């Protein structure tokens, strides 16, 4: 073999390696996140007044100021979501416990923000796996929070070891019931779950509002908010104030593991996944589609309900009107980002939690509107949802060269 042949071989090997990377779906996800960040940076630069002032000076100055603005934004985002390394170092050197807690709080607070995302993301992902588009996670979350707060408020004198699981169970069943209704309607009448879950959202919002202005309202206050729940129902916090990090995060991880087991390791999961991928074949194989739909919607609603329960028992310790601010809706995007796989959902939820938490800090220190984060999330998702964009920008290869894909499928085909 001549030298040039060897070089050729080597090149071929590198080529194969690059090919593999460029075909991997993970590459697209990572590049989508990266592209979203770049786009966000551009947006910051374009909306910055300093940059416009610099335009009058020179082109180089414009670039410098723009870079500066983007850099400051992401620095604030990092400090807000992970913490300021310098401050953490200083705190540990000083040995002051409270200073340490304050310094590392951003990181733990991001995990606190991630927790409801994990629950709600799992809810939507489970639905996707069974071919159901559960847009109702937000409403299920509200109902779950409401049923939880009832148990957490009015059951008294129980030990925590019983009260906490009971309150969580109440949230699961409440959310599950809210998911069960559209599931049952779909199975029995064919009513589409997208429409029905959206409508159920409105009912849930107004219902919880009604309850918070009436029977559940703290009798000693004026605002539509409940009294503080029993201490025995609170989720255990690992550290003292101000760190709110609580055991809910690990319960969420455990739930992700359970969903993974259910979907991929049990016969029930086999049924659910088959119904989701090809209901015709599921029927042919003797699976019960009605039952699968109803069960899946119940479980999906239940997981969303746990997101609400988690917020009540772990973070707020009460229930207020509009407390969720869109966890349920974000979770649709998040489930897509996580490719409807429990592990993907956990990772996506943590990303979203860090972004959300960092955004608050970003607004405070860099004066960047919090909406930039929404744009960032939207851009990342748009890139994920349209992998063709990412493939074109980065000149990636198609994942599988299917000989038939190029001849477009006609409507009569399959």
């Amino acid at each position: 073999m001549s030298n040039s042949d060897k070089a050729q071989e080597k090149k071929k090997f590198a080529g194969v390696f690059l090919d593999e990377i460029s075909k991997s779906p993970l590459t697209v996800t990572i590049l989508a996140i990266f592209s979203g960040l770049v786009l966000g940076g551009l947006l910051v630069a374009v909306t910055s007044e300093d940059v416009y002032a610099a335009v009058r000076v020179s082109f180089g100055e414009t670039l410098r100021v723009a870079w500066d603005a983007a850099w400051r934004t992401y620095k604030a985002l990092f400090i807000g979501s992970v913490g300021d390394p310098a401050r953490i170092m200083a705190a540990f050197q000083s040995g002051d416990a409270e200073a340490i807690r304050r310094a590392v709080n951003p990181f733990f607070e991001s995990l606190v923000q991630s927790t409801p995302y994990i629950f709600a993301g799992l809810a939507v992902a489970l639905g996707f796996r069974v071919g159901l588009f559960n847009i109702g996670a937000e409403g299920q979350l509200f109902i779950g929070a409401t049923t939880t707060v009832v148990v957490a408020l009015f059951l008294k004198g129980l030990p925590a070891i019983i009260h906490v699981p009971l309150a969580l169970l109440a949230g699961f069943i409440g959310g599950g019931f809210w998911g069960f209704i559209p599931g049952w309607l779909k199975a029995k009448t064919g009513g589409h779950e997208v429409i029905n879950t959206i409508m159920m959202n409105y009912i849930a919002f107004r219902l919880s509002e009604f309850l918070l202005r009436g029977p559940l309202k703290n009798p000693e206050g004026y605002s539509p908010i409940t009294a503080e729940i029993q201490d025995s129902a609170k989720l255990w916090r690992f550290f003292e104030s101000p760190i709110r990090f609580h055991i809910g995060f690990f319960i969420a991880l455990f739930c992700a593991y359970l969903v993974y087991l259910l979907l991929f390791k049990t016969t029930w999961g086999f049924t659910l996944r088959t119904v989701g991928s090809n209901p015709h074949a599921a029927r042919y194989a003797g699976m019960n589609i009605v039952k699968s739909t109803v069960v899946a919607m119940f479980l999906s609603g239940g997981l969303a309900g746990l997101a609400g329960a988690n917020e009540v028992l772990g973070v707020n310790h009460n229930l207020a009107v509009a407390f969720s601010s869109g966890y349920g809706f974000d979770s649709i995007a998040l489930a897509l980002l996580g490719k409807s796989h429990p592990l993907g959902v956990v990772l996506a939820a943590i990303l979203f939690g860090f972004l959300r938490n960092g955004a608050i800090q970003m607004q405070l220190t860099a004066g960047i509107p919090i909406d930039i984060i929404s744009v960032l999330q939207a851009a990342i998702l748009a890139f994920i949802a349209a992998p063709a964009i990412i493939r074109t920008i980065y000149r990636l290869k198609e994942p599988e060269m299917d000989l038939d894909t190029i001849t477009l499928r006609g409507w009569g085909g399959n």
Partner: protein
Amino acid sequence: MSPILELRGITKRFPGVLANDHIDLTLEQGEIHALLGENGAGKTTLMNILYGLYSPDEGEIFVRGEKIEVRSPSDSIKAGVGMVHQHFMLVPVFTVTENVMLGDEITRMGGFLNRRAAAERIRAISDQYHLEVNPDAYVRDLPVGVQQRVEIIKLLYREADILILDEPTAVLTPQEVDELFTIMRSLVEHGKSIIFITHKLREVLEFADRITVIRGGKVVGATTPQEADQNQLAAMMVGRAVDLHLEKAPAQPQDVVLQVEDLVVLDDAEQVAVNQVSFEVRAGEILGVAGVQGNGQTELVRALTGLTNPVSGRVTLLGQDITTASPREITELGSAHIPEDRQRDGLVLTATVADNFVLNTYYRPPFARGVWLQEEKVLETAEEIIEKFDVRTPSALIPVGSLSGGNQQKVIVGREFSRPIKFLVASQPTRGLDVGSIEYIHHRLIEKRDDGCAVLLVSTELDEIMELSDRIAVMYRGKMIAIVDAAQTTKEEVGLLMAGVVAQSGG
């Protein structure tokens, strides 16, 4: 005179596959040229190159002696090349005129569509070639055969002289096939030239002027119907001698396994599709149900397998009343079903080969212990079935949708035959498959019969029915108009029955 179309040394590589390997092909003016080969031989790739959907890695294309560059379908349309794809490219909610105009609209001043002018041209084309297509009909209301003619009109409307038809007969009934070939004849008489892609030997011998056989991306032979016979062509296609004629021992029918009495089934539109049908299938025999597509066979099979409930009548399987039983109950009695539409009903294309093997047994030992799937056992069984049924797949863990049609069908056959069964419904078991796979599946069906399984074979391919069946039942407009002994009937008699012509008694 130079040929109207010439392909020289066309080569196309896909990652890991040499789809076309220096293919030469000439098409003379006014001929029907058959491109014969098994699925995956490279026929469609070659035609997609000619049509501009792929670009070749090497090779040249000449039209009327002039070299042309084809970079997109619009280049090939300009050169007078048109293609009818296997899956039609029509918009169902548009009229014929609108579909034909699409992409080549005649407009009046101000950009308004001139439907009338287009419709007149379509009518003229339709009359000239006897296509009998109404320009104002909505495509969704047309039978498949007519839709195909709409596709042909699209090409003629764009003044194509070279027509490529990709597997044109795959979706047609026997009558529609005959009509299509009449049309093709009339097209070549008017100076058009046709390449038609197929793997059906009979059609090639009957209708082609010349034949080119492709195997593994290479041209392996060129011949004419006068010089070749079915066995030669099959051998060329498959690369080995193929046994087209099944050797089978006479059936040894035993006890009645399936008994159907006065069955009435409705179709999706709530119309009576199966009308008072009664018959029985015995262990160790194959009952073939012949009939033109759409005469109630689909609904009959759905009722027997539990996918629909009949409105009246009785179905008994192995002594149990299964008239309203669920698919799972019927399966658990020892019944197997090779469904008509394998991709819709028979497989989960996105799931792995291994998962598809256990699609209807996953919930039972040994594949499940309690609610836990036994993945190792599933995989182990998958490897065994792949080996035993010769499924060509790189692994048991790739999506079944990436396999070829023949191998997908082997996955279904492997799955259904790997558990003890006493009754088998095989609906169009070889539709769209190549010669090698057909041969394989036919042998397996006979094997099952000889094992003492009762087999109900539903097929619109008369040859298949004649070859495999011990008794033949003919369905016509929802009724089973005759059940005849396969040994004492002829293809002509069954063909007439399929058309609804019932022989007079004693005739």
